[in-house]
């Protein structure tokens, strides 16, 4: 239907090709479809938020596609964890705050989102979808690494990332960012692939 080639931000942006070895990457400004909340990862609020986020993502994509506008692939799920600290002093899981995100091409407009939310509300898809919005994020210089295995073991990969940044005379000083490359419902926990990312700045002293 669309005359121009389909956009795939996941394939086109090299930062999504992370390896287990920590590396520095420059992340430019990016737009995400996003929803925030608080509670245990995988709990009710979290799952409902994921459902709402994907519901809006696919409704926007298909509405644009139907109208003959430029088509694009829906990217992987990502999340920011503002109170998941890099120094391992993390609060109780009940208190975890998260911002779930799906990277979205810049040509998707706020009007596309409000229209999709309206459509979903008409289908009785709950108030959750109303909390989905477009957010811009510009992380700048980051350290990132591919973590393979259960989410609980991320500490090990985070430790190697910290050691790496210290050797570069940098320190991690921004919100913990995760990109979920595997579907936890389909992939064995030992094979789960997650990119861990944190913005860095010059170490003092």
């Amino acid at each position, binding site marked *: 239907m669309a005359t121009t080639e389909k956009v795939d931000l996941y394939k086109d942006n090299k930062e999504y090709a992370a390896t287990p070895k920590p590396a520095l990457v420059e992340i430019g400004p990016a737009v995400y479809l996003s929803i925030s909340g608080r509670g245990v990862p995988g709990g009710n609020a979290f799952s409902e938020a994921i*459902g709402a986020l994907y*519901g809006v993502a*696919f409704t926007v*994509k*298909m509405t644009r596609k*139907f109208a003959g506008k430029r088509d694009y692939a829906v990217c992987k799920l990502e999340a920011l964890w503002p109170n998941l600290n890099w120094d391992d002093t993390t609060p109780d899981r009940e208190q975890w705050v998260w911002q779930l995100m799906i990277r979205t091409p810049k040509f998707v407009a706020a009007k596309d989102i409000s229209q999709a939310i309206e459509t*979903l509300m008409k289908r009785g898809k709950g108030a959750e979808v109303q909390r989905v919005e477009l957010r811009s994020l510009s992380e700048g210089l980051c350290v990132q690494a591919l973590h393979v295995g259960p989410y609980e073991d991320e500490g090990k990969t985070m430790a190697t990332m910290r050691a790496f940044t210290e050797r570069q005379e940098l320190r991690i000083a921004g919100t913990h960012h995760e990109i979920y490359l595997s*579907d936890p419902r389909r992939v064995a926990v030992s094979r789960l692939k997650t990119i861990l990312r944190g913005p860095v700045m010059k170490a003092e002293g």
Partner: protein
Amino acid sequence: MRTVTLHDYKRRMLRVLVHIQQHLDESLQLEELAGLACFSPYHFHRVFKGMVGESVKEYVRRLRLERAASQLKLGSASVVDIALGAGYDSHEAFTRTFKTAFGTAPSQYRLARRVELARAPSGVHFHEPITVRFRTLRRGGNMKVEIRQLKPMRVAFMRHVGPYAEVGKTWEQFLTVMGKEGYLGGNPMMLGICHDDPEVTPPAKLRYDACLTVGEDFGPSGDIGAQTVAGGAYAVTTHTGPYNQLGRTYVEFVGQWMPRSGRELRNAPCFEVYVNDPHDSDPEELLTDIYAPLQEEAKGARE
């Protein structure tokens, strides 16, 4: 209470094989063959292929050819007459097929002293008494099957008529329309229902329904219809790999696992559920759950 045993499946399939042997000159209809052995016509072709190792069509054609071969050797009828008797319109078509099967033209075959025939998977040949080797799943086979009890499911669907390899286009169109209307919110299931057997129906006429689970209030509009997938007991197995290899798993599941299961298939089509997204997964990683409808256990036990 007695369940359906492997022996029952074999006994009933043997009835079909004997019937085919005795009616080689008639046009053998799938429904009729299925009925003879109390198999559901929806599943018969897969049960047959699974247990016998050839499709009905391949099996019948081979027996007709083998009969023609023995007529060439033992009789004096002309090659043309034998070709017609084997169901071929022309000498050429018969010669071509014969050559593929036996490695030699009919006229040379007639003169040859002895030609070794390739053995059929089932061991059944025209000129030999029927002793069958049914191919059921070896014990300890690694097919994982679960029995699930389903509630009826209301689905919206778009029908595809054409080769199964082209259903992707129908899915694109269907999901775009459904997505625009907000039906992709709430993580609906994506189902496929194959109504026809690619062994019997020409590719251009194969019917396939791309389905999405919806609420009870969904009404059909335009190209999009609504139907209810029957509830009840289903045997479920997962196919891992490209969609074009689904056929093989169907045959193993319905034709080789089922006869050993103690269960009987219900007269309704199988359906498949697409677990992951083909845009997002390598073909080797694609997961498809195959649902085969079962008769209720007590009913199956009486046979």
